[in-house]
């Protein structure tokens, strides 16, 4: 199977799959029905999965926007409708269904002043809002009830990735990492199928950060290797204010973004994958792989500018660095080092091939596939969002294999996390009887 572990992560997962139907429920008893039934109690009454369409897609028609009239007006043709019932096959129940009925966390953002934490969920295409004091001790197994769960077709949430919060206006922002091509904004009080204030952005937005000093938001565009800036509260097709982009920037598959208003800097994590040919059919230079990095730019940078500092090299231990957070009070940077199941802490002013000052991870930490990190300087805590069913809260200076202070759970303890992120490809390994699914 392909596990799309958070769309931005290239990953192949294999599920043992004895390719026989005998192990699955028979026709007419969809395994998915049982899975949905296992949804947490707090989910009751909330909208079903975003994007779920009925036979004639009434929902999408109702929400059609003029610019996408060609998309949304496309319907099943009369010719096809006439022949459909004569075609063999039809509405057959699956004998096998592999999916996760619970949210799977991705990005995280914290508003310490207002006591709010927001986590995006790629799996069910949603965002969850919690009290900053939420969560239980590591040994607790219960699901943590959110204050709000934003989910449904009007939310524009699909491949929800990065999250940012605006403590002044009490709003949250989420980036859409796939074909939604949007940043969706909501009030902290949003819940259910809440209509987003949506802004069109280039394809492949991931991390997002905001600045009260500039009244701007910045988002990383993976595919175009750029950081693009908009006015806070921008919506519709509002034009970007500026972008950081070009060969001097050394941006390569940028992911996390953090804005340090105090020190006037913008920090970015890069996976290192690069290809102009991805978006430019006339480019003939081929693709490249660069080492992963953390880059720091002046926060008023624009155009093809070089970073002021770069953390890069074997001593850094960077491995698909995903989420990033900056603590201007203690001059530290936290990095979600995703496949290593670790959080790396660097000095804010580090540069070059430097080792992290602390590494947080290990079985006791519960950190598994961390995607997002956030500092709470008021409570002196560090939050970590796993691509799965847990977010952990640590003392800010925690290091090594230590247990978290609290865990926020979106599923009962021990629930598996299938870890898909928009799976769009499959292969069968006939030698091992396994299905291969890339994310």
């Amino acid at each position, binding site marked *: 199977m392909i596990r799309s572990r958070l769309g931005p992560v290239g990953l192949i997962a294999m599920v043992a799959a004895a390719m026989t139907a005998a192990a699955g429920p028979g026709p007419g008893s969809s395994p998915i029905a049982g899975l949905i039934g296992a949804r947490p109690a707090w989910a009751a009454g909330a909208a079903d999965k975003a994007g779920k*369409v009925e036979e004639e897609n009434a929902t999408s028609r109702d929400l059609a926007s003029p610019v996408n009239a060609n998309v949304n007006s496309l319907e099943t043709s009369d010719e096809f409708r006439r022949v459909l019932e004569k075609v063999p096959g039809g*509405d057959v*129940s699956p004998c*096998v269904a*592999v999916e996760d009925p619970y949210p799977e966390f991705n990005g995280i953002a914290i508003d310490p002043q207002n006591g709010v934490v927001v986590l995006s969920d790629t799996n069910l295409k949603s965002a969850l809002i919690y009290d900053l004091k939420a969560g239980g001790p590591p040994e607790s197994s219960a699901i943590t009830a959110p204050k709000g769960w934003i989910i449904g077709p009007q939310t524009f949430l699909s491949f929800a990735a990065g999250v940012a919060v605006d403590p002044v206006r009490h709003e949250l922002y989420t980036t859409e990492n796939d074909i939604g091509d949007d940043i969706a904004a909501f009030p902290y009080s949003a819940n259910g199928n809440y209509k987003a204030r949506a802004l069109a952005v280039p394809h492949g937005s991931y991390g997002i950060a905001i600045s009260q000093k500039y009244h701007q938001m910045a988002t990383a565009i993976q595919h175009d290797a750029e950081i693009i800036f908009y006015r806070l509260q921008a919506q519709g097709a509002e034009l970007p204010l500026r972008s950081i982009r070009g060969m001097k920037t050394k941006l390569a598959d940028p992911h996390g973004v953090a804005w340090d208003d105090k020190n006037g800097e913008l920090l970015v994590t890069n996976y290192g994958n690069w290809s102009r040919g991805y978006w430019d059919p006339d480019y003939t230079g081929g693709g490249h792989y660069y080492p992963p990095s953390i880059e720091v730019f002046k926060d008023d940078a624009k155009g093809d500018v070089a970073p002021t500092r770069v953390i890069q090299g074997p001593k850094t231990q960077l491995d698909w660095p995903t989420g990033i957070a900056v603590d201007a009070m203690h001059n530290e940077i936290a990095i979600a080092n995703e496949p290593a199941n670790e959080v790396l802490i660097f000095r804010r002013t580090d540069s070059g091939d430097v080792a992290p000052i602390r590494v947080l991870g290990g079985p006791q930490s519960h950190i598994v596939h961390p995607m997002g990190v956030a500092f709470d300087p008021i409570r002196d805590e560090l939050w970590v969002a796993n691509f799965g069913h847990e977010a952990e809260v640590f003392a800010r200076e925690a290091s090594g294999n230590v247990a978290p202070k609290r865990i926020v759970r979106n599923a009962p303890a021990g629930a598996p996390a299938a870890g898909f992120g928009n799976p769009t490809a499959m292969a069968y390994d006939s*030698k091992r009887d396994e299905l291969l699914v890339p994310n």
Partner: protein
Amino acid sequence: MASGNTEPVRIIEGQKTKLTRVAHGIAYDAKHDEIIATEPMASSIAFFRGGASGEAVPERIIQGPKTQLHQPFQVTVDNEHNELWVADFRTDLLLAYPLDGKGDVAPIRAIGGSKSGMWMPIGVAVDPQRNLVVAASFMGTRTWHHNGGLFIFDRTANGNVAPKAVIAGPSTGIIGLWHAQVYDGKIFTTAINIKYLPPYDQGGYAPKRGCEGPPLPWVGPLGFVGMWNITDNGDVPPRAIIRGPGTDLIHPGGIVLDPSHGEIFASDSNHNGYFGFLLPTLF
């Protein structure tokens, strides 16, 4: 058989793997016990040992200016002719490489251009016995409403050539195709049936003229898995179909065939999962 909410039995991941986001193509070469994954974000194709796990280093990589790779999506293996086929979404090309190619290797053949009619080909499948190669195209330059279709070429075709046959039109139910597989003269394809029109220009510099906001994701008529004969041509209804609310497929993408057990598997991005169907009569 894995079913329900389950974790993978092994994962290939991490910096050394050179895997990237948008892994829209994967194949398993049983003869050489290799996993082949396309990497659009780096315009590359990565080859792994069949049993690879963890932060595995690829055995070889195809990448570089000569490759003509831009956005490689589905990939498929032709063991009979020792060729690797790739559909390139950005350049509207079907590219064939030596199966043991590595580094900055030029394609042996490239099918594409104005005569081909393909627009954003995503899927590719090969029929070595009949010497045919099939593109599952998201859109078409001359198809009804520019909807997608199946474009069938001679396997040895090269350059800007017209397809031998095109399966597209209102009776097909195809809005946009994703992947394809061929077995015993039959084409199995996933009609993802979304029509994605990005709000920004190519390269992501500015919103397109007339854009008033972002598109709603994942809209469009219900998708399906459809089967056609490889000899079909024109506006032909599918010979068989997996479609409807009971299938749990909304906009299916990946597809796997297991004729020996009569099973078809398809992944679905709306459900973030995959589903298997027992339909031995389709084989």
